[in-house]
């Protein structure tokens, strides 16, 4: 976060607020019919038809050990373009609720603490303080590379505590 400000789209997952750089975001969609992929991990358990292309639907909740709840009318799919194994790929991300695009200034962000986190530390790029709340800037490279596998490191953290 060397630049002073970034424009970011904020969205909710299980009560936590996340932010993605707006430049990556291609489109925000209402829920679409999903096609489950048998044998795929729950993190990318389905594909959807996005304008004639078949794109994976990623559930970030799996990477952050969140419970899966019923869908609501606020649920959205955020379509981003992100490199995946070296190729730019369109990827859908589930979101419980999408908020506005907001400016995040560098001086409001900080490193994720090494300890005391419920989540894999390398999955988080920065934390943003805002109005007494915290917004998470996830590190999608790390999350995608690990295919959202949160389990082994979580166990380690529990042992440390």
């Amino acid at each position: 976060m060397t630049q002073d400000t970034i424009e970011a789209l904020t969205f909710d997952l299980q009560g936590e607020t996340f932010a993605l750089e707006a430049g990556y975001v291609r489109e925000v969609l209402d829920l679409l019919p999903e096609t489950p992929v048998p044998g795929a991990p729950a993190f990318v358990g389905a594909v959807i038809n996005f304008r004639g292309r078949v794109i994976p639907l990623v559930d970030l909740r799996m990477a952050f050990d969140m419970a899966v709840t019923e869908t609501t009318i606020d649920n959205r799919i955020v379509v981003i373009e992100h490199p995946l194994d070296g190729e730019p790929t369109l990827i859908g991300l589930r979101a419980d609720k999408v908020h506005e695009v907001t400016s995040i200034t560098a001086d409001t962000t900080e490193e994720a603490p090494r300890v005391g986190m419920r989540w894999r530390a390398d999955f988080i790029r920065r934390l943003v303080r805002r109005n007494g709340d915290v917004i998470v800037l996830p590190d999608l490279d790390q999350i995608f590379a690990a295919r959202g596998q949160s389990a082994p490191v979580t166990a380690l953290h529990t042992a440390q505590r």
Partner: protein
Amino acid sequence: MSGLDPIETFRQEAQELLEQVEQGLLDLARRPGDRALIDTIFRGLHTLKGSGAMFGFDALAAFTHHCETAFDRVRKGEVPASPSLVSAVLAAQDHMRALAEGTPVDAGAGEALLADLQAAIDGGDAAPAAAAPTAPGLNTFKIRFSLPADALINGARPLPLLDELRDLGEARVRVITDDVPPLDQLVPAECRLAWEVLLTTKHDRDAIDDVFIFVIDEMTLEVEDLTAAAIVEEPEVVEAVVVQEDVPVAANTPAETGRAAKSGDTVRVPAERLDEMMDRVGELVIAQSRLKQLAASSTDVALRAVAEEIERLASEMRDTMMVVRMVPIAQLFGRFRRLIHDLERDTGKQIELSTEGETTELDKTVIERLADPLIHLIRNSADHGLEGAEQRAAAGKPAVGKIMLAARQSGAEVVITITDDGRGVDRARVRAKAEENGLIQPGQVLSDNELLQLIFAPGFSTAAAITNLSGRGVGMDVVKKTIEGLRGSIEITSTPGEGSVVSLRIPLTLAIIDGLLVRVGTGRYVIPLATVEECVELTPAQDLRSTGRNLITLRDELVPFLRLREQFKTGTQPDLHQKIVVVATGQDRVGLVVDQILGDHQTVIKPLSSFHADVGAFSGATIMGDGGVALILDIPALVSLGQRHDAQLRAAG
């Protein structure tokens, strides 16, 4: 065509010319003294020089000039087309290719090549060729020629032609204005003049043809040899016609391009435009299946009629598009002759390459992606398969090793085989190597086929010493991966002492396939129709009986089957009338139990992201008429899974 970058056009042209020259040279190595070949090569070099200079590739033109000069001497019978000369020009040709592509080249390299070339020519001087040079003395020709009306527009100019004729000797030129229209109908840009030239020269007939080399396909040219008392007049004219048909090298000169555009014979189109068009056709097919569904639920007869019409058109459009993208595999096979030439030099083995079925057609993208794997396989055959001359003699085989490349179409697949008559795969060494690399347990029982397939396992290489040719770490596993990326399969069979056969099965096209749409639980899946052998019912009685061992008897043959419902963990109850779709790849068959067969479906293949690459059971996805997504089953993966299940059950039970 005019929208293309001229430099790029030249590069493409140069590429083709060089390929033709290369083919000519390789043929010449086998049939030295073949006049037609020598002429072909000469014309190719000449055209390359000419267009090179025209498009500002001066270095290329200058370099090519020397090769052309060398070949001119061959053509005149002053120097024989010795193997050393052919090799020198082949080497020089790589340099030309680099120059044409604009790759930086070492300045000294060109001079070294030219020195080689000179040495080859001088060496040849000692043994003058059999072909007798033309008798000296003066010849008189009556030349009558005219250019096509649009010649000026296409850049051909009559004046330099006349000047060149004048350079040959004493010329008397007369213009023929018979075809010139009255002034009010005259189009100034059109060339309606013809010329008659009486030429007295010490050169022969070929020199005259050379003057017209760029325009010969277009123009009318009559040459009368007045020296020889008009006896050979008729055959000469006929010969000129034959030569221009036989020698496609003359194609792609600027005049030729003009003709193609005019008569619509061939059009050169960049491959990406074809790809774009393919995408559009893909979308059209998707939209069409939506229309079909709408029409099916409607009672409007007119709508249904239109929907059917569109369906027919879309399907024809698809087929046409496929055909447009098809190119004969000869394009690919042609490249390997050079490879064999180099391999002979590097291995010191004598190798004869024969090809079969070059007219078999494949999708252009498939052909391009096949090049590297095939090069690797041929190298392997030459390096590991074929024995040295002594070993071959000891085994009672002819000294020249044979490698055969064959292609044939079989249903929706093309089967390519690489056959060698070498020593065959050494099973003991394969086993030892696999055990050493931990691919198998020591003493593990393997069928012969399984043992041979180990060659394609990652990290496997039997070459005891790493040679320049193969065994450089890029193993057969990469070949296998590439082939599988094309939705193809690879198999090897081998008889010790007699040779090996590697067979590749490649689908004709990558973009659209005919599929069988099935339902498993609530999900819809597509099975490529080409792999489907038959569909049978799984009766409840059979279903109960076969819970332990998943086998059905089909015409006295036991076929293992997989319940896709269990495989995909749908958690649904089986339908009352389950079906078994029997699919096959190569020799292996397996039954897939589905809940319902929904019908056939024109499937536009969409790739899955790398998130789903390791799931294994799916090779892609497609979009259905209602906008939903159906996954395409990866039949080879499922078949091997089924076969493995079966083997485990057998072992257990």
